[in-house]
């Protein structure tokens, strides 16, 4: 077993510097690497480019980094529900690249899988395709989209072991698996770090080869963005 376990979040994030490109897992606030994000705030690294489906909310998730002006550029598919984000974007303080959601994940996966680029039909005929190579296959038009290049990927899983194997829970899986192994260094934080050998190899979603560092998060707030319930009859 190759040991990926580090003592804590500080050790896990050694080497993160100003102006780096970071991938950050999660969809909305679901499945975000809370401990890594909070530590980025503490480290006060600046000029970051963040690849993440969303940008958090005003006072949680990546919104915390935006608030401290630590992010230079966001690469996302949807950035609503965040007033500070909208203000910085409209005033030009923040650079934003909006990418169709399926393209965003596939550009991560291309980096993970050794593909320099992929062809997708998403965005053909729209401003997303401007300046990009277009090619026809079987009578349909496709846009060439390049693999991301990132320094660190921060992902969050439910359970993991020191070998770096990961299991996700519910819809907290989302972008996390495609970001594993898509950057130079992948840091996985888990709710529960279990002894090596206790995870069933049949049930592992991401094998440890894609993960360089793993730690158990100190705590998880797991904030709900839109609480919707029904009354019991």
């Amino acid at each position, binding site marked *: 077993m190759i040991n990926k376990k580090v003592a804590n979040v500080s050790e896990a994030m050694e080497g993160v510097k100003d102006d780096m490109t970071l991938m950050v897992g999660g*969809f909305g606030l679901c499945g975000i690497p809370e401990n890594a994000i909070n530590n980025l705030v503490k480290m006060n690294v600046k000029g970051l480019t963040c690849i993440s489906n969303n940008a958090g909310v005003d006072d949680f998730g990546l919104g915390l980094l935006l608030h401290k002006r630590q992010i230079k550029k966001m690469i996302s*598919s949807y950035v609503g*529900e965040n007033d500070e984000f909208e203000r910085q974007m409209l005033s030009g303080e923040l650079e934003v690249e909006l990418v169709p959601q399926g393209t965003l994940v596939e550009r991560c996966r291309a980096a993970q899988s050794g593909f320099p680029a992929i062809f997708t039909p998403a965005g053909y005929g729209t401003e997303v395709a401007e300046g990009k190579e277009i090619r026809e296959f079987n009578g349909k038009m496709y846009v060439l989209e390049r693999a991301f290049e990132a320094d660190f990927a921060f992902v969050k899983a439910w359970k993991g072991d020191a070998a770096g194997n990961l299991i996700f829970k*519910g819809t*907290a899986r*989302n972008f996390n698996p495609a970001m594993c192994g898509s950057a130079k260094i992948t840091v996985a934080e888990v709710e529960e770090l279990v002894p090596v050998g206790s995870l069933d190899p049949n049930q592992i979603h991401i094998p440890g080869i894609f993960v360089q560092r793993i730690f158990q998060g100190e705590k998880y707030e797991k904030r709900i963005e839109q*609480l919707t319930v029904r009354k*019991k009859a």
Partner: protein
Amino acid sequence: MLDKIGIAKRIAKEVKDGYYVNLGIGIPTLVANYVRDDIEVEFQSENGVLGMGPFPYEGEEDADLINAGKQTITTLPGASFFDSSLSFSMIRGQHVDLTILGAMEVSEEGDIANWKIPGKMVKGMGGAMDLVASAQNIIVAMMHTNKAGESKLLKKCSLPLTGVGCVKKIVTNLAVLEVTEDGFKLLERAPGISVEDIKKATEGQLIVDGEIPEMVL
């Protein structure tokens, strides 16, 4: 004239037995409430769940279980979870049978705009561009006119496009229309709405062929 629930009820009739369906945010989400209960349908949400169920009971919500609108949900027996890549394989690979989404504008050529108002609203396209680029069967749910009373069914979209030539059918508060090579073909009228009313509210080419029946909800 229909309200939002009326539009959802009419669209629910387009959902057939054995369909996998992706519902967008807004009116489309309501469609799930009105699908016949004697047919089998599975709802997909692009953040990674197939077999979505209703909202959880109070106190039973799970932060790790949401839909693409970030609302807490439940799953039904037979449901599955997957990552975003596999989710868009279902969409791009045309495994999802029906996509229902909202729009700000639709053109008579089937172009759709629903993600950006330059200088005003830039929230992003989310999964909409992937959905419209690939789905074989797209129904748009929207009001026939905007708040200023201007038609949303146009010759050409004025807002930045989400996709080109992709919309097949539109259900509005006034009518059901099919996008054809010659323009918007009027299929049904909403209760109490005349063909004249629909003509007045439609800027793009409207095709009225014979007697137009009233919708049955």
